[in-house]
């Protein structure tokens, strides 16, 4: 039934999913293939260049992002399981490459780039993936996905169709405190923000914090683990891939 409009999807695997959370990437491959699409993954791409970009080192960011653009030049659709890296490609590449020979290419790739949950819901028109996840969960909106890309409804639409899942919203929509290098440059502030997030999650009584951004989950899990909290974190794609 999903075999109409078969696409070749280029999966962009962010560095932290590659090295630390491969299950999230594997789940995305399996889901997209189950939907009848073919998935390619350019192995030579390691990073989108966001760390130097966010630190103000735009020249170094272009050194990384320039080759990325060339490798994605012919992609039909670029799908990223992170709102943060997604925003980098979609919103910041055009700014980073403005007035450079790659300006047009950056705009072209930007237009074809999708965050994973948004791609499923808005592009493929799919919400029910037949997943089963019998747990009480809450959802953390990564700030880049939420505010740079404006994605809020898609993950909720997908989770709404997961069997056995009990969904509780967090009381407040706040940053987890990760912020990339911010977490190392100002660890005390970053930690305090994360503590607020963890406390809000605990208030919901959820067993799992789900997010469409592994980088936020890395921060939240790092705090929960140190606190000895029983709450677990999991990427949205992994939940959707539980059959």
């Amino acid at each position, binding site marked *: 039934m999903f075999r109409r409009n078969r696409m070749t999807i280029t999966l962009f695997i962010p560095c932290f999913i590659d090295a630390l*959370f491969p299950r999230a990437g594997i789940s995305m491959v399996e889901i997209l293939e189950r939907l009848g699409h073919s998935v390619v993954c350019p192995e030579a791409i390691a990073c989108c260049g966001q760390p130097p970009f*966010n630190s103000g080192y735009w020249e170094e960011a272009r050194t990384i992002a320039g080759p990325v653009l060339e490798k994605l030049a012919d992609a039909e659709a670029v799908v990223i399981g992170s709102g943060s890296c997604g925003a980098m490609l979609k919103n910041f590449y055009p700014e980073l490459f403005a007035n450079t020979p790659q300006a047009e290419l950056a705009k072209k790739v930007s237009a074809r780039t999708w965050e994973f949950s948004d791609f499923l819901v808005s592009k493929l028109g799919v919400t029910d993936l037949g997943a089963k996840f019998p747990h009480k969960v809450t959802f953390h909106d990564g700030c880049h996905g939420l505010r740079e890309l404006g994605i809020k409804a898609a993950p909720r639409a997908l989770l709404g169709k997961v069997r056995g899942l009990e969904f509780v919203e967090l009381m407040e929509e706040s940053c987890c405190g990760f912020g990339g290098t911010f977490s190392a440059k100002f660890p005390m502030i970053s930690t305090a923000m994360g503590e607020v997030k963890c406390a809000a999650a605990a208030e919901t009584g959820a067993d799992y914090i789900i997010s469409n951004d592994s980088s936020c989950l890395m921060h939240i899990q*790092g705090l929960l683990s140190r606190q000895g909290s029983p709450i677990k974190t999991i990427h949205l794609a992994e939940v959707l891939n539980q059959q």
Partner: protein
Amino acid sequence: MSSFVSQFKTLAGEKTRDLRHRQVIRTALRSYEVVRDKRKAAFQSWEFARQAAAETKWEAVNHLDTHLEALVAKLEARGTKVHWASTGAQACAIIAQILRDQKAHSIIKSKAMTSEEIHLNHALEQEGFTVVESDLGEFIVQLRHEPPYHIVFPSMHLTRGEIQDLFQKELGDAPSDSPEELTMVARRVMRQKYLTADVGFTGANFAIAETGMISITENEGNARLTAALPKTMITLLGIEKILPRFADLALFLPMLATAGAGQPMTCYNTMYSGPRQPGECDGPEAWHVVLLDNRRTELLADAEQRDALHCIRCGACLNVCPIFRNVGGHTYGTTYSGPVGSVITPHLRGLQDWKHLSNASSLCGACTEACPVKIDLHHHLLQNRRNASVSEPAFFERLAYKLFSIVANEPKFWSLAKKLGWLTQPLQKAVKGSALDPAKAWTKTRDLPPMPKESFKDWWRNRK
């Protein structure tokens, strides 16, 4: 490291560990959010209102020269004396000279962040003048000899118990910790000050070019008394406070009240157009308006960040900022704290000294979303970071990113880095959080995720 950044880090460390502070601020701002959302919903379209406000301020700021000329011509036509101050020191000198000319001794002030910006109270007190703040929050922080904690709520960090203790100590009168009773104590003290003050000093919320009026909004009536009772009135405002038309207030007054305090309208909204005119029975005999630049024109010259001059000082970006909520207003060490302060302070007081405020952000964008005049706040933080690293790159940081870009661009190096990460995991666990741990900034308070042996790319290669 500049003294400003080390001070910021020290205070941030103290405040983020202060769970009582976190709770006080969170409770105050949670109730703000509830009323703000209720008031936003009363707009037919809050988003349309934001767009309209942003366009109006864009027009005002991009034609600042003509609007300022129009404002001044109208003010002078009704007998107001207008002064231009390029710097804070000049503004202080102008105001001190007016006071000397009037043979004034005491000044009553209503709330004006611009006066905090130029350290007016300190300058006037140095010259022997007595200055009394009449806004209740400002009055409280003045008694504590500290700057305002927040640009709209100067004493929001204090509990009523702390205010009771303060009044008991400083005023010798604090019957209870009830806000009503404490307000009555302050009121009794202040009423005397209004009557004996030689000069009333105010700030301004908006300056209307079309009609030559200064608009002041307040909730306590103190600005009205400040403007009405003393014989001389002085108003200080930044040149960016301009609105082109009187009708613009129809949008900006409810918007400022909604974004700033979750009110439909601020309780008292007054438009001042001149000193007492012939035949009028009240109002000050003389009115001096001091227009302050203090490097605003440098921000005006920066096309990328010029919209930061749209700011109407509502404080909405502070209220939603998770950094502000955790470090508190005083930690910034600036007049304007929170996101907008982090954006403009490098322009007003030097990029290299104040760039750390732009780095002290997770770039979550809650500020940009909250700003009623649509200042692109969190992107300006990114631009400040870029400008700072272009003009004075940090040697080791740039080197680290150069090395990182080599690793990221060469799959063999990237694979090797992952392998090394996996192999050294037991070692990382042994040194976790200690001085030997290269990741101690992270591991002091957080665990690192376990690193799987097989990365995604390994899995991908193996399955093919």
